[in-house]
């Protein structure tokens, strides 16, 4: 006779064996596969026009009207697209000095951005001004889960997360902001309270995965890619110390990544991190291929096969 302990172990092994049936084989089962295209920017910094043709390094690159056209083309080809941004929409060209963010937000609404998070420079004209721009011109949410904004002008104008549906896919998106101390002047940060981004992101991601049953959880982050000398929480820390985040769209450090970085989270699962420099020079793109699974199998995909794609 098996002891109860051995019996449980054997059952678990058997169950585990059944559940880790070849995933690729199932993915090939026709209509159960879907593609979700994630397009993203960060630190666009009021760069509405292309960089001027003045002999500087990035001359001729970027510009919202060109970005918009590319996005339009991709949407014409792909049914399931999410267009995201990781903050610092504001500050960097005279547009912002003149209009305090109105044309930037209008352009993003026109392009059909689905969500952004808040960057430190999005505070530069004051929270009241940011709130006004969002209220009047934004057709997308600004997501941040680790700033407590109760009693500030941002109350009611930002939220911790939002759930998006693309066909059968349910995608949970949350946002995290950087510590304001030493970065955002006190009079601009006001009574906003900064909370530990890892703890807050874990809480929200947990809800999105377990209560809301999201198929993909994305975190928009303005924490910065990684730090060598400064002791600041980075996307690397976030990726390694979270449990339910699949993809981090980063910003703040203006990091150009040739391909997404891959980290292993606390549950041993892959987390992707991408960031595309600044100024709208690049439009980030990651296509996720989804397969249909039942029950526990969903939680069993630990490794994501990552490869480059040739974009036209």
């Amino acid at each position, binding site marked *: 006779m098996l002891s109860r302990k051995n*019996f449980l172990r054997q059952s678990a092994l058997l169950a585990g064996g*059944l*559940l880790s049936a070849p995933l690729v084989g199932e993915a090939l089962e026709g209509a159960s596969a879907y593609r979700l295209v994630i397009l993203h920017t960060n630190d666009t910094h009021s760069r509405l026009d292309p960089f001027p043709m003045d*002999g500087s390094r990035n001359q001729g690159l970027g510009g919202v*009207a060109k970005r918009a056209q590319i996005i339009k083309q991709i949407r014409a080809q792909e049914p399931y697209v999410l267009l995201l941004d990781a903050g610092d929409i504001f500050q960097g060209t005279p547009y912002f000095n003149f209009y305090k963010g109105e044309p930037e937000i209008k352009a993003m609404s026109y392009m059909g951005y689905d969500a952004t998070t808040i960057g430190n420079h999005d505070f*530069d004209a004051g929270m009241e001004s940011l709130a006004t721009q969002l209220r009047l011109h934004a057709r997308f949410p600004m997501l941040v889960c680790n700033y407590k904004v109760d009693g500030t002008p941002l109350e009611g104008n930002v939220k911790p997360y939002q759930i998006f549906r693309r066909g059968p896919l349910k995608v949970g998106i949350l946002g995290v902001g950087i510590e304001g101390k030493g970065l955002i002047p006190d009079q601009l940060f006001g009574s906003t309270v900064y909370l530990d981004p890892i703890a807050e992101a874990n809480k929200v991601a947990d809800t999105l995965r377990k209560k809301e049953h999201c198929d993909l959880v994305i975190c928009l982050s303005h924490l910065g890619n990684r730090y060598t000398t400064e002791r600041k929480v980075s996307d690397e820390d976030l990726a390694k110390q979270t449990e339910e985040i699949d993809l981090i769209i980063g910003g703040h450090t203006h990091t150009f990544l040739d391909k997404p970085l891959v980290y292993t989270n606390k549950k041993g699962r892959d987390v992707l991190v*991408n960031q595309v420099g600044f100024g709208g020079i690049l439009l980030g793109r990651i296509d996720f291929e989804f397969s249909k699974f039942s029950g526990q199998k969903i939680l069993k995909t630990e490794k994501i096969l990552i490869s480059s794609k040739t974009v036209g």
Partner: protein
Amino acid sequence: MIRPFFLRLSLPVLLISFLAACRTGYAPTQANYGNQRITRDLATDSALFFLIKPYGDSVDKSMSRVVGTVRNTLEKDQPEGTLGNFMADAYLTMGARQFQQPIDAAFVNYGGIRLNQLPAGPLTLGKIFELMPFDNVLVLQQLSGVELQSFLDLVAARGGWPVAGIRFTIKDKKAIDVYVKDKPLQPTAQYWILNSDFVASGGDNAEMLKVLPQRSTGYLARKALIDYVLFQSQQQGFVGAVLENRVRYAQ
């Protein structure tokens, strides 16, 4: 013996299978990446172009004004770069005029330099706005030699910031061989130091400055840059700065 064993074993398996059947979902198995470079040859969305055009036209009306000519391309770099030196020189020279008193040194926080280059050629007002988009004002503070050393150590730990009036060496993230106006730093002496109000108020973790009183005339850092461009243009006919080993890494 076999039959009951099988039953006992299969019950939990069945249970798991049953629970699994309750919910289906989708999981990512593959990710294909491919960032798209936004280049000049791409098509333009004309509706968006015309949506932002009125804003751009209005901005350009004042911002396309040429205020000077850059002789050699100015570069942002650490521990020292020509672009940073240009800005530090501007703050020191124009700050002394504005405050009408001698100033020992002026600093520029590296992260506050918002362009990587000022290319050789005509310099527009718009470029100055891009270089210094923040509405920061220049602030004067009196520091003891000890306090100045503490601030310089922060600057050193951050890889070196542009400075005018001081030269020093960075070793093990500390500032050594510090000279203020060509004289060795004296711990007990008092120095007048110019910074943006961002740094003087504790920005970039300059906690040692946060507690010190500030003198301000509301003079914008950007205004100092514009005034210096006009000043240099009048004095020498062009805008520029050179590398002088103001800040260097220890060999």
